[in-house]
């Protein structure tokens, strides 16, 4: 039987080709990415209790290309009359790629006057930021923004 792979160079080219093809898209090892996706799903399920979430009413404002992932200004506003009968009870913000999915959970009510919060988040990696609003009637609404995060230039540690 003749060997197909005759030289070390050919073997390495074959192996690295497979790695590049599979690995180019993923920035993390596949199991870490799967774990984080599962954690995000579990967090969303905890908030929603399994009830359906519709896109709409919520406006999540995050810069699409962040200057620095350490401090990302974000704001969430929800269309709502904010009366006792019809108001936003809570706004939750989550990220897709952080080591844990929650950013902040704000609890409002009719005394808020407007459903609007502003804060600054840490976003570790390029991915989605999700805002979910829970209304007084039990309905759930959300908005999602895709954010690109890059490394700062000239860091102190000297590590890339």
């Amino acid at each position, binding site marked *: 039987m003749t060997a197909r792979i005759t030289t070390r160079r050919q073997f390495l080219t074959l192996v690295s080709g497979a790695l590049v093809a599979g690995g180019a898209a993923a920035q993390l090892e596949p199991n870490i990415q799967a774990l984080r996706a599962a954690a995000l799903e579990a967090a969303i399920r905890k908030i929603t209790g399994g009830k359906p979430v519709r896109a709409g009413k919520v406006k999540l404002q995050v*810069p699409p*290309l962040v*200057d620095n992932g*350490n401090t990302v200004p974000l704001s969430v506003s929800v269309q709502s009359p904010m009366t006792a009968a019809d108001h936003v009870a809570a706004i939750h913000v989550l990220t897709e790629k952080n080591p844990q999915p929650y950013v902040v959970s704000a609890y409002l009510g009719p005394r808020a006057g407007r459903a609007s919060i502003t804060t600054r988040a840490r976003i570790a990696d390029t991915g989605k930021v999700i805002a979910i609003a829970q209304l007084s009637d039990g309905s759930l609404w959300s908005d999602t923004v895709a954010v690109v995060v890059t490394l700062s230039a000239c*860091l102190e540690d*000297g590590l890339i």
Partner: protein
Amino acid sequence: MSPETRAMQDDEATGPAVFWLLDGEALWKRKEGPAGAACASCHGAGSMKGVAVRYPKIASGRVVNLEQQINVCRTERQKAPPWAYESRELLAVTAYVARESRGMPIRIEWNEATAPFLKAGREAFNRRQGQLNLSCAQCHDDNWGKRLAGSVIPQAHPTGYPIYRLEWEALGSLERRLRNCMVGVRAEPTTYGAQELVELELFLMWRARGMRLETPAVRP
């Protein structure tokens, strides 16, 4: 610098540098040393207006930056121990003093006194250094506006120091930022307070002359 970052800088009430300014104000009024003298004891209200835009300055044949001048006052006038470079106290008081000049144009002149130091600073700016063998000029004069790994290369005018750098999540001095640049080109970073570093600071401020001070600025 994105509009969102600029909005953080313009938010004077709840911008991230606020705590250092509050600390700076408290330290400015704190009595120090055996004579119990505070900065405020000699420097009356409003007296720091226009000061930071003239720093670094030449004194006794050396170039001195604002941090060093604050320590000179501490050791010689207040007879108190100097604050370490990048300590919270020194950053807070430097920011507090420089804040008084916010909005004023930077005033560094090329004259007989400053010429030798400016020449040295300019040489440093144009000198290749580090394993990457790059000079400041190659990025910040020749390639400003273009992108380096996702960030836009600025012209590198130090108009807002000490800055709240988002990367540091804290306030820091121009020297800290310059040392980051040196690490970036894989050069040995110059020691804090060394004349070569202050000469470079002087040159950079001269290069930014006429631009308005934005201290405390917010930068990525």
